[in-house]
């Protein structure tokens, strides 16, 4: 069935380094993706989104890249900070006509 998933469950990076979190999707018809950040004990928080007519979108310290050919997207965080430690989810709002989350990648920032 349709799915949205991530490659790695945990990513550990040094403070100040760049982080790259990857996500694969299976539905070729998916045209809109969202990244959410979930800190411990809190609900997910919207970070950035991207539509399929774009292959790159930038926010504040974050960039999302979309490769429709291989059905892959990534979230890049520049100069990773301790406050970036969280679980990151890619989500497809249109998978089964509802927001479907992948399993999440836990980002751990080492001081």
């Amino acid at each position, binding site marked *: 069935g349709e799915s949205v998933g991530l490659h790695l469950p945990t990513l550990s990076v040094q403070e100040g380094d760049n982080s790259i979190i990857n996500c694969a999707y299976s539905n070729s018809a998916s045209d809109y993706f969202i990244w959410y950040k979930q800190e411990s004990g809190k609900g997910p928080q919207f970070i950035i989104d991207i539509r399929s007519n774009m292959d790159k979108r930038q926010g504040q310290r974050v960039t999302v890249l979309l490769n429709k050919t291989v059905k892959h997207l990534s979230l890049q965080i520049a100069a990773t900070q301790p406050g970036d430690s969280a679980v990151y989810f890619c989500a497809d*709002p249109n998978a089964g006509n509802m927001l479907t989350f992948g399993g999440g990648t836990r980002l751990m920032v080492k001081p």
Partner: protein
Amino acid sequence: EAGVVQSPRYKIIEKKQPVAFWCNPISGHNTLYWYRQNLGQGPELLIRYENEEAVDDSQLPKDRFSAERLKGVDSTLKIQPAELGDSAVYLCASSLRGHNGELFFGEGSRLTVL
């Protein structure tokens, strides 16, 4: 502006007992969602409301779970009777109509069933 408010934050009950969770969405948000999040996993949709109408409840285990949003604002999610496997965080979210991607989540209600 207040965000999505959920209560209780934590609930511990014995199996076969009932439990209820309450959610107050962001003012003006027509769409309300209940998600369940098991440990180490992403949230899974249980039910989605457009105003007071449940428009997607295909993932709600209807034998023991029920939800309502009587006046199109606050919502309650009930489990009766609870089972061990119901232990999870129950997240409520809201969004503007048509903005089905940008959801605003509450902090969740963590349920432990003993």
